[in-house]
């Protein structure tokens, strides 16, 4: 499996960075990039790209020249690490691509070109570094959750791995969403767009976008499902105070996202569509993943400092994939690091009311990308469900679909009840209130812990804070408390 993994990883990388004139020097270029003997053997396995002649404008991030030039910390790349990059058609294997109306294609091409530009622009990178540090408050801590660790060890015969939390909930805005929002808002400003359009589920991304736009002096229009607006009223009020216009859409988050895409098609010249997460047509998933991958890069350095090694496993919740990819991406080439994604199991996988795309979905095309999707026999989208609004998406990022396909990442499901219990558990044992979305990642620890090496280290992405979810947790507690009392009363003694 390891060689198959690296072969596909290397081949998809190779495809991304080769222009037609440089195809002849492929083998030499690939050989230069590899330093290990094993990697050199794999270079021979690299297959020729069979995509369109149009080349990706994404720069070659892996050349030796990058390592030696002075770069901000988040562009450091180890030559030994290989990661997934989309090929020139924006595909990870068969996933991804640009399945959108022809009208948008020119816009996507322009976005890809701008992205390639900013990656090399020192001024942009410095400005971004300053924003990440002084505005968002990075780097976020890697916190050793001792009591949580003790709790799981006690269930495991007194031994097991140490649990660390990557504290993305401590970012400005209360979630990891700001990493991406600030960078993309900077891009929007750079290309002269005055209006930023986006969609939000729980409101986290909406708040992050509204904040970033306020900081940069841009107008902001946010699409949100009407029912989510009711549930997350304080978030809506905050977005409005930050200067954004919030528009309600009938349906769920997926409908708000669709409306934002349609709005983009209609206002391409004046507006910038900000993707909040790693979905959508190329280059949106890659854009988002790139800006979120600071999470993983910091984790690698912090792990080295704290215990002189790497994590044995990374755990993150998967709604669409931005926080998961942000943590995972850095470690994709490290086959000794397990990548564990946790999806929303809702009322349970058999109930049909869940959002576990990678467990129960099939490959299809959604919102511009080929990816796993919850669909019925006719190819129509199934409405997903989860107590955590941010997990309610019927598809998933194409890069995660690819990681599942090649077996690099493992995906599990956690039900509403398990997530709610995890919310309470982390509150009581660590005094940390993680969002219901992040609670899904905590919810898998019970099953995962026995499979981890003794003395190993597991890093859980605490992707957002959960003070806004308190009323949902209470509603469920009250309901279940009442249910228990009723059952106790009615069950014959």
């Amino acid at each position, binding site marked *: 499996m390891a060689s198959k993994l690296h072969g596909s990883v290397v081949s998809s990388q190779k495809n991304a960075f080769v222009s037609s004139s440089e195809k002849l020097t492929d083998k030499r270029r690939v050989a230069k990039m590899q330093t290990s003997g094993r990697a050199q053997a794999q270079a021979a396995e690299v297959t020729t790209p069979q995509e369109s002649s149009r080349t990706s404008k994404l720069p070659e991030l892996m050349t030796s020249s990058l390592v030696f030039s002075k770069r901000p910390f988040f562009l450091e790349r180890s030559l030994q690490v290989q990661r997934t990059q989309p090929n020139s058609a924006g595909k990870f294997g068969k996933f991804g691509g640009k399945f959108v109306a022809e009208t948008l294609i020119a816009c996507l091409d322009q976005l890809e070109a701008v992205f390639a530009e900013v990656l090399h622009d020192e001024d942009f990178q410095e400005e971004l570094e300053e924003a990440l540090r002084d505005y968002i408050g990075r780097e976020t801590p890697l916190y050793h959750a001792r009591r949580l660790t003790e709790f799981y060890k006690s269930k495991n015969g007194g031994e097991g791995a140490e649990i660390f939390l990557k504290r993305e909930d401590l970012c400005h805005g209360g979630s990891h969403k700001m990493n991406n929002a600030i960078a993309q808002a900077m891009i929007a400003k750079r290309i002269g767009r005055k209006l930023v359009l986006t969609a939000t589920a729980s409101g986290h991304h909406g708040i992050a976008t509204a904040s970033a736009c306020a900081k940069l002096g841009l107008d902001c229009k946010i699409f949100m499902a009407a029912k989510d607006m009711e549930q997350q009223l304080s978030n809506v009020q905050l977005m409005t105070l930050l200067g954004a216009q919030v528009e309600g859409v009938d349906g769920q988050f997926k409908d708000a996202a*669709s409306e934002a895409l349609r709005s983009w098609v209609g206002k391409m010249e004046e507006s910038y569509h900000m993707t909040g997460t790693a979905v959508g047509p190329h280059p949106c998933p890659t854009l988002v993943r790139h800006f979120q991958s600071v999470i993983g890069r910091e984790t690698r350095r912090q792990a080295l400092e704290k215990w002189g090694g790497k994590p044995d496993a990374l755990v993150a919740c998967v709604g669409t994939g931005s926080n998961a990819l942000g943590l995972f991406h850095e470690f994709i080439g490290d086959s000794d690091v397990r990548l564990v994604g946790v999806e929303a199991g809702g009322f349970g996988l058999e109930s049909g009311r869940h959002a576990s795309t990678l467990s129960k979905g099939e490959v299809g095309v959604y919102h511009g990308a080929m990816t796993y999707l919850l669909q019925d026999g006719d190819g129509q989208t199934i409405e997903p469900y989860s107590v955590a609004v941010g997990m309610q998406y019927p598809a998933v990022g194409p890069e995660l679909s690819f990681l599942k396909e090649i077996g690099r990442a493992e995906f599990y499901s956690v039900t509403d009840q398990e997530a709610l219990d995890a919310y309470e558990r982390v509150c009581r044992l660590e005094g940390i209130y993680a969002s219901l979305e992040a609670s899904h990642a905590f919810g898998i620890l019970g099953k995962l812990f026995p499979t981890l090496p003794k003395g190993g280290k597991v890093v859980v992405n605490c992707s957002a804070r959960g003070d806004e979810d308190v009323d949902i947790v209470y509603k469920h507690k009250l309901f279940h408390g009442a249910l228990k009392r009723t059952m106790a009363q009615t069950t014959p003694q």
Partner: protein
Amino acid sequence: MAIALTSSFLQLKKCEVDFHTFYPSKKPIVSLRRYTTMAAISTTKSVGISETFNRLKREGKVAFIPYITAGDPDLSTTTEALKVLDSCGSDIIELGVPYSDPLADGPVIQAAATRSLGRGTNLDAIISMLKEVVPQLSCPIALFTYYNPILKRGTGRFMSTISNVGVHGLVVPDVPLEETTALRMEAKKHGIELVLLTTPTTPTDRMKAIVEAAEGFIYLVSSVGVTGTRASVSDKVQALLREIKETTTKPVAVGFGISKPEHAKLIAGWGADGVIVGSAMVKLLGEAKSPQDGLRELENFTKSLKSALP
């Protein structure tokens, strides 16, 4: 006998023609059923899309192409609507397959899709309906559907299913040129003409590639945005039409936003070979007080649009 010299692909076609339909030259088409395996000749039951355009060109006419969503308000109304549109002089009819997430469509067609799906419309039901109604129509049908339902069924199976009920063309708005290879291959195999779209934002060399690959006709999207009626037609369309016509002799039909006879006349005057009217039609049918009212208004509207065209 309805024999047409098409491409040199091997084709198995069922030929089924009604006694009551006529060639434009008023000669009756004799009903017959046959299968043919001749390599260079295939029989088609009614005239295809390219041929319709050829005939119209000879007659100096511009094609009128209405669009309606199948199943809105219900499939039996759609059946009647197809007959009405046909009898009022539509040259090609675009029939939309409702989809849960229509990204290229504005509020009117979105609402139609939601209503239709709410009534349980699915592809199988639409196919059964087409099986009954297509033999009664004189103009060819092009299906308009998003990509995922095609993928789910399997591209080959999808093409053969629609071809078997007499559909001639297909428009898939969310597949970019690079991804159309599989679609085009299967479409050709089953005698379906795959229409491709080009837009005001498409750069010239890409437009040329699209035009080269398109079958049936080239769908020129008139404006940057989703479907939906607009107050006026952008005059960029005139320049785009000219550019496309310099590249190819294939017919070009303009769509998105056209809602009045004046629009249609203007576009025809600029040299378009066809005019597509969607949301305006869907709105009439969907928002009418009753299906009968809707059909009546549809008939009047169609006649007014058709009369504005040469």
